[in-house]
């Protein structure tokens, strides 16, 4: 599949580029499209034609819509291969991580809702209890998955997911790799105070 023509939008380009650069801490203007990132991308086979260099170009040219909403942003596994190999020291995985957060702030429905829900559930558990409880956060994640599929009337998807996760859970229990206790850090008050500070920072 050929790459689509990028929607060039000079008026939008400058503020969008600046926002992505500020938030990610990456100098996107330094990219000269050598495509080393594309050659090494772990999920290159899974993202259609979207490669890290193309994503950078889209941001630079102000194609906001597609930069915020493509397979690479969601399928990026943060393996950091692109950034390690970039001759200009651009960590593109920080850009995909930033675009995920910007898409969320704009209430765009994530292209891969399972991936978005997973990371949300994980961080929420870590902040709420001070430690991540595997069963609790996986439960929250699976509930979200089920609710979304009930709304979409995709009951088969729920059944498949239940089968897979129940099978894994049974095997883990047999192997004594399932933990039934609950982890809590007393210092979670500090963590919550830091989270309030993070929210204040985001609104300023």
């Amino acid at each position, binding site marked *: 599949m050929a790459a689509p023509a990028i929607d060039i939008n000079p008026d939008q380009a400058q503020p969008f580029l600046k926002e992505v650069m500020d938030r990610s801490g990456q100098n996107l203007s330094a990219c000269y499209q050598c495509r080393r990132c594309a050659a090494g991308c772990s999920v290159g086979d899974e993202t259609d034609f979207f490669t890290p260099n193309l994503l950078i170009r889209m941001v630079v040219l102000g194609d906001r819509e597609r930069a915020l909403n493509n397979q690479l942003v969601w399928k990026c596994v943060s393996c950091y291969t692109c950034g*390690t190999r970039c001759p200009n020291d651009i960590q593109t995985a920080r850009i995909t991580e*930033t675009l995920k957060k910007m898409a969320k702030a704009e209430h765009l429905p994530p292209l891969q809702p399972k991936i978005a829900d997973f*990371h949300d559930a994980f961080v929420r558990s870590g902040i709420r209890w001070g430690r991540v409880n595997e069963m609790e956060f996986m439960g929250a994640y699976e509930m979200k998955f089920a609710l979304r599929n009930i709304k979409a009337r995709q009951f088969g998807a729920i059944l498949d997911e239940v089968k897979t996760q129940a099978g894994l859970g049974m095997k883990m229990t047999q192997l004594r790799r399932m933990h039934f206790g609950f982890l809590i850090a007393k210092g979670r008050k500090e963590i919550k105070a830091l989270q309030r500070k993070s929210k204040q920072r985001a609104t300023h």
Partner: protein
Amino acid sequence: MQLAYYPGCSLQQSSALYDVQSRRIFSELGAELVEIEDWNCCGATSAGKVDDFMAIAMPARNIGIAERAGFTEMVIPCSACYSRTLVAQQRMADDDGLTSEINAELDAKVNGSLKVSSILEALEDRIKAGALEDRVAHKRTGLRPVCYYGCMMTRFPYNVPVPDDVENPQGMERVLKALKIKAVDWNYKTACCGASASVNDPETAHNLMARIMKDAVARGANCFVTTCPMCQMNLDAQQEAFCQENDIEARLPVFFITEIIGAAMDIPPEELQTDRHFIDGTILLKELEQHDEKGK
């Protein structure tokens, strides 16, 4: 000697065996791992995708706790916890404003004096100090592992002092060499297993792991060795599925580095909870034990 120890959430839950092994192996090597008090979750890679400030603030609290307790070095066996903690420390060292914003909310403030070590760095230090020589029995030298580093041990989202080569790390190979176990050279040592994609995007994760598996098998390895609980869980728990999907006949146990050291020290696998793998690792170890007996 005592070292501060940050186990992280997975070593208290699905990878509790790695916690048991790490404490035991370091104690065999003359170092006590002292768990820091009331530590919290490091945020893992998820925090970086949800909240940048928290991705630094969460590991910061743990650094502060270790520093207040007077430790100069903290060992972190989990690769993701290690990466997040090292990055948070460097981000704060480079940004005084950020450091004071975070410190304002912390009981134990961060001052930057702590050395954050991966399990490989700490093991290599002990080996260099000669701690292995008295203890190692040089058993199970028939192990032919491929060393699997994955992402978090080698590549970082921020400029941090990296202790090993990013494209061809050698830390695990050096540890194995000290045990007289020959590591198998291969191409996928720093490839990605898909991490949480095994849950939220299994097709992608299975494709990535099938490639890793195919190279390991083609090179003649009889097991994987890793330091990362996420990589271990993925390659172990998903192996049956991704091998069936990709017509791979072989199955390879996925050991933590601590289990390999334990085997070389002749510690019974059950004491290290090696019987808790999806792909049974005890069969290979027993075969090699019989081989060791014959060689006597």
